[in-house]
């Protein structure tokens, strides 16, 4: 093959262009940018003045336990007995077997292992309770629980779960029917009281140092309960309501996530236990496809076939026709 042949190839209208040999017109690019800069300023000023921006206050463990102590206690017992969503989550929080989402042999969550280790019984219940001063009954209950056999612990937590299912909220105080749940009632009751005073928020956030910015533990505890989800549902933020692309109030939110959120609304992703991974794989394939679209036959021909360009360059084609 000659050197000249190597430099030339057959013209492809979806890949190549003929050099423009037509007219040029004056165009002040900096002036256009400056006018656009001012125009956008006026636009966002108007939008900010008229619509402001949402700022729904954050939920705290204190407000949750005060507003709905029953839900808080029902969640706390699942943290203690290891049946909560976080306790059985798998990586990166713990190594629960078969918990990771997968597509056949593709199980990327397992590749990186546990990076933010969380033992819900210790981190969410026992360790915070151990920080409570002047509560010998609570400390004795913890000691009794920790020294009991696993079977005894399970018997206590199972009995408490049944009892707390019928618990009531009496003027913000948790009232659990009597049962054979040993020290667990005292532990969960103390944890509820601790949360209602605001002490649990600070304790879960603490990582043994003065400054903290990692909210992983309190957020996971909150997410294990129903209170946060119910509040989100009322704000049209649930997964089946196009989820997190929405925003509190009547704001556009992250509308650009519509395609990502859409996959959660359709089968099989909307009911699959591996739905998150399936959606992410789809989005990764689509994103890479969009980047490499100029190389993909058929797809790169769509603009020429749809002829929307005739609308964009209508003046050019009109002048060509008249010429």
């Amino acid at each position, binding site marked *: 093959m000659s050197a000249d042949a190597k430099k*030339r*190839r*057959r013209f*492809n*209208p979806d*890949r*190549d*262009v003929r050099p423009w040999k*037509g*007219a*040029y*017109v*004056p*165009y002040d*690019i*900096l002036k256009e*940018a400056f006018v*656009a*800069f001012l*125009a*956008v*300023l006026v636009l*966002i000023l108007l*939008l*900010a003045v008229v619509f*402001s*921006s*949402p*700022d*729904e206050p*954050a*939920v705290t463990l204190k407000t949750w336990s005060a507003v709905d102590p029953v839900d808080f206690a029902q969640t706390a017992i699942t943290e203690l007995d290891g049946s909560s969503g976080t306790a059985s989550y798998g990586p990166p929080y713990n190594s629960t077997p078969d918990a*990771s989402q997968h597509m056949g042999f593709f199980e990327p*969550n397992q590749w*990186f*292992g546990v*990076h933010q280790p969380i033992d819900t019984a210790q981190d969410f219940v026992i360790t915070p309770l151990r920080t409570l001063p002047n509560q010998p009954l609570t400390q004795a209950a913890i000691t009794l629980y920790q020294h009991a056999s696993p079977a005894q612990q399970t018997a206590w937590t199972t009995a408490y779960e049944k009892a707390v299912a019928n618990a009531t909220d009496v003027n913000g105080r948790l009232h659990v029917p009597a049962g054979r749940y040993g020290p667990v009632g005292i532990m969960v009751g103390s944890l509820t009281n601790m949360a209602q005073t605001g002490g649990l928020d600070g304790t879960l956030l603490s990582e043994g140092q003065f400054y903290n*910015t*990692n909210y992983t533990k309190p957020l996971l505890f909150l*997410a294990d309960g129903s209170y*946060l989800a119910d*509040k*989100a549902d009322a*704000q049209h933020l649930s997964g089946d309501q196009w989820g*997190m692309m929405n925003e509190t109030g009547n704001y556009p939110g*992250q*509308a*650009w996530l519509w395609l990502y959120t859409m996959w959660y609304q359709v089968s099989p992703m909307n009911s699959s236990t591996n739905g*998150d991974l399936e959606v992410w794989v789809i989005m990764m394939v689509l*994103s890479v496809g969009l980047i490499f*679209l*100029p190389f993909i036959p058929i797809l790169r021909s769509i*603009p020429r076939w749809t002829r929307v360009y005739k609308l*964009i360059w*209508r*003046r*050019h*084609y009109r*002048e*060509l026709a008249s010429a």
Partner: protein
Amino acid sequence: MSIDTGTPAETIPPAAPPHPSESHQWTAKVRHAAESAFPPDQLLPDRQPAYMASWIYVFGVLTVVSLAWVIITGCVLAIMGPSWWHVSSTGHFVNSLHLWSVEAFFFFMVIHLWGKFFMAAWRGNRRLTWATGVISFLVSVGAAFTGYLSQQNFDSQWISTQAKDGINSTGAGAVFNVLNFGQMLMWHIVLLPIGVLLIAGLHVLLVRRHGIVPPFAEGGDDTAGTVDTAPTPAGEPA
């Protein structure tokens, strides 16, 4: 009394013309490459091809200036700290400007992207221009997402606790913890803005380098003949 102010600027000899002996210099090579790739009249042109007569072209510059307002309002929020907008009416207003500049940025960018798609704007050695545009969109999505995580309100709580499942399913949760406010704030105000600015900057430079894509030829005669595969020469409109 006179004061020695050092060598006057005028006495500094002008840059020597290119000399074969300079070819080994990194500085000379970079300067020559930059001058070759971006001659001034191409970097800041005062004329454009006549076919550039559509409102769709405005959305590119609107995207860039919206990004400028996103950065400006974000810098004001950064100066005052992450809690300011929750406790100050002025801060809340600046946050509103930041929010709406982001909404405007994405609105204009998506229209720009669709416009370029229907122009098949990757034609004529512009595939890298297209790719950098798409990548800057994807990185911008990440930057906006971490912004929502950094709000420190109910929205942040809900979005982070929902998003963790998707992120964790990919394994990325091991190093990108959406529940860690401090980490997300750093991604939002340092790492991702740097990424957006670098990629968007490269995208704009490539647009200036190759110019705007010409229209499809009428009548289907485009399919005839061959094409030179060499990149568009610098300084020559594409």
